[in-house]
């Protein structure tokens, strides 16, 4: 199951969180509607959408827009539903202004059948009105825009976040809000929709919907009056609009009402749809532009596309790029020695395999002695990014590639040791490598420069300082307390 199985045609609707497309399933050549919801843009909790899909997948009725399947493509959810090519009853009203009683009865009968199915399953529609009654190109009637939130089956952009639309809302829905009403609320809305279909608009629609909202529970129920209408339809509407939901009949009872029971075969809904399509072709010229244009589906592994180069190795390394290179080198070359630090160099240790204290330092990317042979860890391109390098301690640092570690030298005291270059600056370079932030590195660099200056001013200062540290080391750092 993937988006490749469908050929996407034009965008046919826009919702808050996604666009609806007409599409063809390639294997079956059948036309479907696909709602594409960008999950990363949607503020709706994914679990609510999933709940909605589970709900839809448990419904199977000829009077309800059918759900087919869902799949995930990148960050979008594609929901495949039945395509209703005939538009909505609200579209019919736009063109024909009002419908005759026979046509209305034909539509309302199937609305009741759809509701009967939903209600038997203990579900509510919550938003019955002409805009949510769709027509297939074969002239069948289907309920849409239902479900837990109505989000998925929604065919049009909702302007208010209310559940339901005020003109069609049952009094108990307004008074008790979300909890205290049942399936009878849909019956009220069906009554209002009946009035809407035969007159062109629901009662009170000349007023501001938010202002009349609290009038509905106070007012007497609307009535269908006038000589234009038969007693049957007036009676049907009167039943639907009984204020007390307990006394209002159920959908199964209403299906026995004369208004919907004796429907003439002369109803030609296809002609009405055709005329509507012609009317729309004249009056609505522009196609809908999707809010979130579809991007080609690229299969990719997210974790490989991390926006940040994290460092996960627990060994020291300079940055991830180098870490990666280092890892491959470590795996491939046996002559690379893991870094050995002063702390691990006891009296007898021989660090001779190390070319220089610097090249054994953790970061292969900087070398204090550019003339020293490149270690296997320093591939060309990395060393070339020399802007990050610490200051060169002194030209004398170059011969650091002697066979001895400074620690070794300190202990043997047989050969002259340059305490500034071999010991102090070496340690500070280690510190430089361990520093994470550029500012810390800068501080260490300053310290190095300062020591060079002090040594120039007071030759021997470094040696004395190191001796002090070594004495302390022998005494044991923990024993110092002042």
């Amino acid at each position: 199951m993937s988006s490749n199985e469908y050929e996407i045609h034009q965008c046919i609707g826009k919702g808050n969180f996604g666009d609806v497309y007409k599409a063809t399933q390639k294997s079956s050549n059948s036309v479907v509607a696909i709602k594409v919801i960008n999950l990363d843009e949607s503020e709706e909790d994914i679990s609510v959408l999933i709940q909605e899909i589970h709900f839809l997948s448990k419904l199977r009725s000829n009077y309800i827009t059918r759900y087919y399947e869902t799949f995930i493509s990148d960050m979008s959810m594609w929901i495949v539903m039945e395509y209703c090519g005939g538009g909505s009853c609200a579209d019919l009203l736009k063109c024909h202004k009002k419908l005759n009683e026979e046509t209305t009865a034909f539509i309302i009968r199937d609305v009741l059948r759809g509701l009967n199915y939903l209600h038997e399953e203990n579900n509510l529609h919550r938003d019955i009105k002409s805009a949510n009654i769709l027509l297939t190109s074969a002239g069948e009637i289907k309920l849409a825009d239902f479900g837990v939130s109505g989000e998925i089956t929604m065919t049009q952009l909702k302007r208010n976040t209310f559940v339901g639309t005020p003109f069609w809302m049952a009094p108990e829905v307004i008074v008790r809000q979300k909890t205290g009403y049942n399936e009878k609320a849909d019956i009220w809305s069906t009554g209002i929709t009946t009035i809407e279909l035969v007159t062109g608009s629901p009662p009170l629609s000349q007023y501001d919907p938010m202002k009349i909202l609290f009038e509905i529970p106070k007012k007497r129920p609307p009535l269908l009056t006038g000589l234009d209408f038969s007693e049957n339809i007036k009676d049907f509407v009167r039943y639907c609009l009984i204020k007390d939901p307990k006394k209002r009949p159920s959908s199964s009872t209403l299906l026995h009402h004369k208004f919907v029971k004796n429907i003439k075969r002369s109803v030609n809904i296809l002609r009405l749809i055709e005329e509507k399509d012609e009317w729309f072709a004249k009056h609505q010229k522009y196609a809908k532009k999707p809010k979130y244009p579809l991007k080609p589906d690229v299969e990719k592994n997210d974790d490989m596309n991390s926006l940040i180069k994290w460092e996960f190795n627990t060994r020291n390394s300079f940055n991830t790029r180098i870490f990666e290179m280092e890892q491959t080198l470590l795996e491939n070359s046996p002559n690379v020695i893991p870094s050995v630090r002063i702390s691990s160099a006891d009296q007898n240790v021989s660090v001779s395999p190390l070319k220089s204290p610097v090249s054994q330092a953790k970061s292969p990317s900087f070398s204090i002695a550019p003339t020293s042979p490149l270690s296997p860890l320093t591939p060309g391109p990395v060393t070339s990014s020399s802007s990050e390098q610490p200051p060169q301690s002194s030209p004398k640092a170059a011969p650091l590639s002697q066979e001895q570690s400074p620690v070794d030298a300190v202990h043997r005291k047989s050969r002259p040791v340059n305490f500034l270059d071999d010991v102090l600056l070496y340690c500070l370079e280690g510190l430089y490598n361990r520093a994470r932030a550029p500012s810390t590195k800068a501080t260490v660099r300053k310290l190095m420069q300062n020591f060079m200056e002090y040594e120039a001013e007071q030759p021997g200062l470094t040696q004395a300082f190191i001796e002090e540290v070594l004495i302390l080391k022998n005494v044991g750092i923990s024993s110092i307390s002042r």
Partner: protein
Amino acid sequence: MAFLFKRNPKTPQDLIRALNEQIAKLDLGGDNIKKYQDECARYLKQIKVILHGDDENDPQPDQISLLAHEVYSTDCLYNLIYNLKKLDFDSRKDVVILFSTLLRRQIGNASPTVEYLINGKPEILIWLIKGPESSETGLVCGQILRDCIKFEVINRFILVNPLFWNYFKYVQSPVFEIATDAFVSLHDLVTTHKKLVSEFLANNYDNFTTSINQLIQSNNYVTKRQSVRLLAELVLQRQNQYFLNRYFDDTNNLKLIMLLLSNKSKNLQIEGFHIFKFFVAKPKKSQRILDILIKNKENFIAFFQNFNITSFNDSNLIDERDYILTEIQKLPDIERIN
């Protein structure tokens, strides 16, 4: 609706017996499947009326009691679950109603259906656990299973069964509804009974962490987001203390969560943050965790400077981000010597 009741079984016992007969015929198959399906559908509708009444009649406790006894003694629930696929689409939902109503039935403190499922016919539970293996009936089984695990004994029965671990496979099913429904079940199994779960997580730390980490690395956006969300829920549970301590000491976990922070999805970043914050805020961090945090200090600071959460309108989130950023800034700038 009187016409429906012509030549109908008189008593609840007769009704259940008649239903069992039709199911047996369905099971055998043959040409008359549709006829048997319709018969089953009709009997199930009548059972629904006995259990819940209709417009004219209220449910009668003695009738329900007779019905329940007959259901247990004839293993009717087993017959129904075993042949669920052969029942028609809407009848399957009536099976859900029968199950959930019987489950809720209590005599004193005893729940006879729960007792029956655990000691009488545990095969039913096994079938339900394997529900997601059929894309046709997976959702129905899932719904019943979740009704069952509201009872701790049944939840325990499932957690100790090796079949439980199949849920980590089911949630990756290519059929979206099956995968997501199995996830709801998985979620309920490890969140409903807090004490049971804390014990389970403590005993199965390695298996569980490996399994959920695999889901977090899924390429399916929904699987990824839901599994992180589930993990976040688990780590918020104080009872899961043992699990938490181990989880937040494991560098592999930290690594996966850091990858979420750097995911291109804004929501995954947020979900990741809700776990990441505990790695940082934990008072006694293990040295290896600390090492990774220190190593990436600049990365984190850069990340939090671009961490766009204003659209979420969540002042707690902003406070938490600021707190975590401060904690990160307090981390040492110098790495530890290995």
